[in-house]
């Protein structure tokens, strides 16, 4: 079947009343998660994953994906109105978003960010539609050596992107790998690190760790940063402005900005470890460097808001490519999504689209619908989100603790897992505080068992020789790409960081 036919089939799967309801609920929840400072898509996905267990797999995956890309839409509202990014991927949106709001143009800024997000997200989904089958076709020749190298590539690129704290990132990954070895060894049946506990025979469950690290850990860190003491007094009153809708000049001046950064954001998103934050900072930096009026950037230039917004949404679509076609997540959020797939008994990879066409194409088709829904929600539900921003963190915090706790318990009705979640929360706080990377830990926890299995299979095939990695053309290609990324990514990281620093110095 051709791509168009596959997509139509996906649409027929996605467009059912119950799936549309799940999609809208996911989009709405994703926006809410994005609006709350300190919580990103990974926290939202981890906390809400247990709530999808009563649903059918297609509806659940559609809803979780909507939470994932919906968070990118929501994070910008606080960037524009409060100068506080909802998450790291919307930091670049504060550079011109908040100055626009201070100039009395909050309404047009909110509408343009929604449109830019929609364009970035939709172009991203179009590129997934075209490229995902090609990626899947290429990766069909992959065997255990290639899978081990891909898992290694995912980890290494994430650690390289951490920058100066890369050693702490590596230790975080080792902790994740170590946790991944707990449980019965599937090849020999021997227990590892179970200490006689029946609860640990099946291994350390991913959900309590992810909820603890991203939910509780981030919450404790937000309290440490004093978010519960800051009010929302500085919020811009957009409803008192004369004009809510953008002018014709806003549309015309940013049309190519959207086109450029949709592609750039998608490409950066496909690279494991790079992600939406780097994409948005790079887009801002690139846009300013090619602008005829760079001096206006940081003072309320619409292109300075549109560029990072388009890029971060396109990047979140791009990150779905390695997840769907290789089964390798490139970020913490996609690691949580992979865990969701695995919980449903689905194994993303080269054969995923062939073996589960309804689910794969249903998910892709739902992303078109989800972006349309998010465009409408993010324009017409702004008053609702403004009310949410006004809820003080000191009230929101305890509520998040309750949802994390009951969500964890609801999965397996296990008190041990609930206590594990609390422990992960406290450890996650100290990890954030001292520069460790909870994202690397979670990614390693998901990739660890896959990497170990692939490595042991590889060395069994090669009778213990590591030369197998350089004897196979596909492996050599992956090694080459990994080396290229390890050289290039620090440079991309530097471009993004220098854009952020220049903006901080300027403001």
């Amino acid at each position, binding site marked *: 079947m051709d791509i168009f036919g596959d997509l139509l089939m996906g649409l027929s799967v996605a467009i059912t009343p119950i799936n549309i309801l799940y999609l809208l609920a996911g989009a709405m929840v994703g926006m809410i998660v994005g609006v709350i400072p300190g919580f990103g898509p990974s926290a939202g996905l981890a906390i809400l994953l*247990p*709530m999808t*267990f*009563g649903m059918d797999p297609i509806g659940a995956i559609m809803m979780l994906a909507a939470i994932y890309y919906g968070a990118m839409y929501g994070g910008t509202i606080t960037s524009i109105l409060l100068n506080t990014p909802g998450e790291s991927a919307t930091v670049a949106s504060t550079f011109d978003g908040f100055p626009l709001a201070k100039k009395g143009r909050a309404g047009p800024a909110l509408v343009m960010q929604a449109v830019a997000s929609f364009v970035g997200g939709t172009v991203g989904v179009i590129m997934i539609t075209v490229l995902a089958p090609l990626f899947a076709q290429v990766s069909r020749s992959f065997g255990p050596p290639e899978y081990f190298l891909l898992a290694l590539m995912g980890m290494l690129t994430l650690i390289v992107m951490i920058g100066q704290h890369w*050693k*702490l990132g*590596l*230790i975080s990954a*080792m*902790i994740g*790998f*170590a946790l991944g*070895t707990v449980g019965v*060894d599937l*090849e*020999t049946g*021997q227990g*590892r*690190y179970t200490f006689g506990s029946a609860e640990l025979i099946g291994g350390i469950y991913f959900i309590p760790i992810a909820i603890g690290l991203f939910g*509780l850990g981030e*919450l*404790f860190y937000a*309290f*440490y*940063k*004093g978010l*519960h*003491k800051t009010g929302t007094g500085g919020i811009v009153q957009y409803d008192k402005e004369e004009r809510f809708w953008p002018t014709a000049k806003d549309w015309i001046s940013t049309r190519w900005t959207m086109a450029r950064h949709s592609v750039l954001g998608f490409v950066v998103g496909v690279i494991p470890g790079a992600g939406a934050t780097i994409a948005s900072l790079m887009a801002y930096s690139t846009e300013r460097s090619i602008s005829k009026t760079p001096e206006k950037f940081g003072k309320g230039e619409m292109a300075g808001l549109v560029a990072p917004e388009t890029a971060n949404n396109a990047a979140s679509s791009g990150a779905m490519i390695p997840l769907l076609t290789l089964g390798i997540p490139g970020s913490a959020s996609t690691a949580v999504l992979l865990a969701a797939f695995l919980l449903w008994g689905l194994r993303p990879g080269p054969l995923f689209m062939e073996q589960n066409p309804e689910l794969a194409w249903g998910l892709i088709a739902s992303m078109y619908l989800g972006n349309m829904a998010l465009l409408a929600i993010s324009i017409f539900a702004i008053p609702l989100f403004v009310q949410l921003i006004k809820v*003080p963190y*000191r*009230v929101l*915090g*305890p*509520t998040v*603790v*309750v*949802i994390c*706790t*009951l969500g964890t*318990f*609801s*999965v*397996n*009705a296990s*008190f041990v897992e*609930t*206590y594990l979640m*609390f422990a992960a*929360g*406290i450890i996650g*706080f*100290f990890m954030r505080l*001292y520069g460790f990377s909870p994202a690397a830990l979670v990614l390693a926890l998901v990739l660890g068992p896959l990497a*170990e299995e692939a*490595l*042991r299979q590889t*060395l*069994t095939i090669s009778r213990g020789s590591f030369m197998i990695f350089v004897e196979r053309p596909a492996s050599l290609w992956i090694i080459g790409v990994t080396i290229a990324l390890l050289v290039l990514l620090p440079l991309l990281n530097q471009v993004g960081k220098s854009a952020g620093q220049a903006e901080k110095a300027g403001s």
Partner: protein
Amino acid sequence: MRIAFLFVVLAGAVYYTSVAFLDLSFLSRTGRLGPGFFPRIVGVAAIAMTIWVIVDALREGRAPDDESSTWGDVLMLMALAVAYAVLLRLFGGLIATVIYLGLTLSLLNRGHHRQNAVLSIAIPGAVYLLFDRLLNANMPPALFDMPF
């Protein structure tokens, strides 16, 4: 504090590695790679990296402790979360959540007695409806029989 945390990580890594070397075999009975193969690599790498970071940290000298006034609030929130875990075991999901929210909000959201009281009842009620009724998910049961 940072160095203390690193030493805790090192202790964990040393223990993990010792189990990998002492209890888990490198090769299986059939001569294939055994259950100890991967943990040994991970453990040794974790020890080496942690020692490297500790040496770096000691060379840099003692960083001034953050005298952030929010430490008290974080520790209080952590202690309350742990207390919530205990309450859950004793009183079950609904009652424990009412007690936890009542206590936490009265400490964090001081002076708003009416708002705190309403939230302490409304949030557990909404969460109960969502989990127990709408999603048909498990709620923690009480250790003792409760009248509801």
